[in-house]
């Protein structure tokens, strides 16, 4: 790509092997300047490994990494203008909060007066100025987390790496920090590469998301694309909730595919690339894009209600399809939604919204 030199980070065919175990299989990724970029995937999929390769703590078995067009994978960590917020914070226990935050600037050779001034500003940004003289051990987990953030931001790196920085915080604090991080990213204009295994966190915060699994990049896109147009069953299943039904394709015509379920019910939906007659593929249906009704719609499946579960803002209805497969539908807990709730045992139709069903070939 000709835009590659302006990308903040450009990873080309990066492979990482530990002995004969391959942690990353040829990953290629471009992360734009100024972007809030998220690496999302289940535990053990290689997110930390990739981040540590960018930071310089792990060498790259094969491939190359560029930072604003400059090849960096051979540089030691202290020569890369990239800073990291570590998952366990890694604050220096024998230094005060201010000394911690100023450490990077000091190492870059700034005069002490400026170090103190800029470290103070960074502390102000995370609202911890009054704790400057304390030792890290005298702070709460959330405060330590913010010191780690200030310490990584103070030297104004070109790229900031964050490895599951919020995972140790309780839910409420985590939500608040998500918003704060997003604001800091926007205000500083620094490129953030954020690692998480929490898909909801990824969807809320990111400009773009790279979904990873078993050391491979599964899909790259913004939150909406990843949620609405998952490329494969892994992404569909990992992001949000979905109903995955095995189907066989009977006919492909005019961009539409007619298929049947193991129980014999038929359904027509948009054909995706690679779908051919006779193919055994999966149908992904988001629970909130299906309506339970007494009468069939344009595209419908027959089912029997098993139970309704009240979950606060929503009601989840579990039904059994005519072929015996379990299927979940989510209805908003509003007057209009409640009118669509049927008693257990009732025979109903599951009416698909336009474009709700998605065929996935792998």
């Amino acid at each position: 790509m000709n835009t590659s030199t302006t990308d903040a980070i450009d990873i080309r065919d990066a492979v990482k092997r530990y002995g004969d175990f391959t942690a990353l299989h040829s990953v290629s990724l471009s992360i734009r300047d100024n972007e809030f970029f998220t690496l999302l995937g289940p535990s053990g999929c290689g997110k930390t490994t990739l981040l540590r390769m960018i930071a310089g703590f792990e060498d790259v078995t094969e491939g190359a990494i560029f930072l604003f067009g400059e090849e960096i994978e051979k540089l030691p960590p202290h020569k890369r203008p990239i800073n990291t917020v570590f998952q366990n914070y890694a604050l220096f226990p024998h230094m005060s909060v201010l000394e911690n935050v100023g450490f990077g600037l000091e190492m870059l050779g700034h005069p002490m007066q400026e170090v103190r001034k800029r470290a103070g500003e960074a502390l102000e940004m995370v609202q911890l100025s009054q704790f400057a003289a304390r030792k890290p051990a005298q702070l709460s987990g959330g405060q330590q987390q913010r010191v780690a953030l200030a310490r990584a931001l103070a030297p104004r790196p070109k790229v900031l790496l964050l490895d599951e920085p919020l995972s140790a915080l309780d839910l409420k604090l985590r939500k608040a920090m998500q918003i704060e991080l997003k604001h800091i990213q926007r205000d500083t204009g620094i490129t953030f590469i954020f690692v998480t295994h929490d898909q909801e966190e990824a969807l809320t915060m990111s400009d773009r998301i790279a979904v990873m699994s078993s050391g491979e990049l599964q899909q790259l896109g913004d939150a909406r694309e990843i949620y609405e147009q998952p490329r494969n069953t892994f992404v569909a299943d990992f992001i949000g909730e979905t109903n995955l039904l095995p189907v066989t394709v009977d006919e492909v015509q005019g961009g539409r595919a007619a298929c049947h379920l193991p129980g014999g019910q038929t359904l027509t939906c948009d054909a995706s690339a690679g779908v051919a007659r006779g193919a055994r593929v999966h149908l992904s249906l988001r629970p909130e894009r299906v309506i339970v009704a007494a009468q069939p719609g344009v595209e419908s499946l027959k089912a029997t209600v098993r139970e309704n579960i009240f979950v606060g803002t929503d009601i989840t209805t579990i039904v059994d399809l005519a072929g015996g497969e379990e299927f979940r539908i989510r209805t908003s807990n509003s007057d209009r939604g409640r009118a669509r709730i049927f008693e257990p045992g009732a025979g109903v139709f599951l009416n698909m919204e336009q474009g709700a069903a998605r065929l996935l070939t792998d």
Partner: protein
Amino acid sequence: MAGGAASGGSSQSDTYAGARVWLLLPAWATLLILVVAPVGIMLVYSFLTKEFRGGVIWEFSWEAYDQFFFNRGLFGDEPPRIEWTYILIFWRSIWQAGVATLLSLAIGFPTACFIATRAPRQRPIWVFLVTIPYWVNLLIRTVSMKFLLRDNGPLNEALLGIGVISEPLHIVNTNLAVQLGLFYSYLPFMVLPIYAAVERYNFSLSEAAADLYAPRWTVLRRILLPAVKPGIVAGCILVFVPSLGSFLAPDLLGGARNFMIGSLIEEQFKGNAGNWPFGAAASMILLTLVLIILLFSARQQGRQEAR
């Protein structure tokens, strides 16, 4: 300010207040029998009058201390001059023990770091290997050391063989031999506490420092060393203190000219020629010296933690 915070007293619950007295009894009894009583006896003896065939006369006297620090001539009737003999022996002992401690630190620190960075399952094996020589009696080890270092011993043979030197090195009966002997005697006491400290060290701190533009040596100096300093101080004390009072290595490897405190004290209690009060006084002076060193390092540690 530093002194107060150094104690860092955490108030324990008083649920076990009654039981605690009994639970602590063995510890107090041990301290009393093994520390307070011998030191007390030594203190008393150092202020008694010497009996010519060893032993003491129960009569108060400053003579032992006077003899240590002052020279009043052969018949004790001249005006006192400072007696340098024993002070010099002390000074030599401090020097020898200090060099041995630095040698142990120079070798022990990298060794400890090496062990602590092995895979967790391998570490006990390395620790075991470090301690193996210490299953052999110290006397035998020191004698073997002498054999190794002799003019026609394996070390010189090897160096002559590969042509590094053309004349054998005279190591036995020098200060260097004593330093090497002490270093070899007490090396594990340096390695083990440093290993314990480095093993507890969180290496992501080193990564964080490197991430924040610190070159390797700065990471070592600014992050790793402060974190493992208690282990280093403990190791230095554990090597320095026994080296200071050691008599085997100086006797066997140093010869008559490289006399150290330990030998001086040992002489006073051997056979009939000894002077018990003088030996006790020299021991008390040594003990005081060691206590001053320990107090000083404890204060430094306390200050560090309070900061």
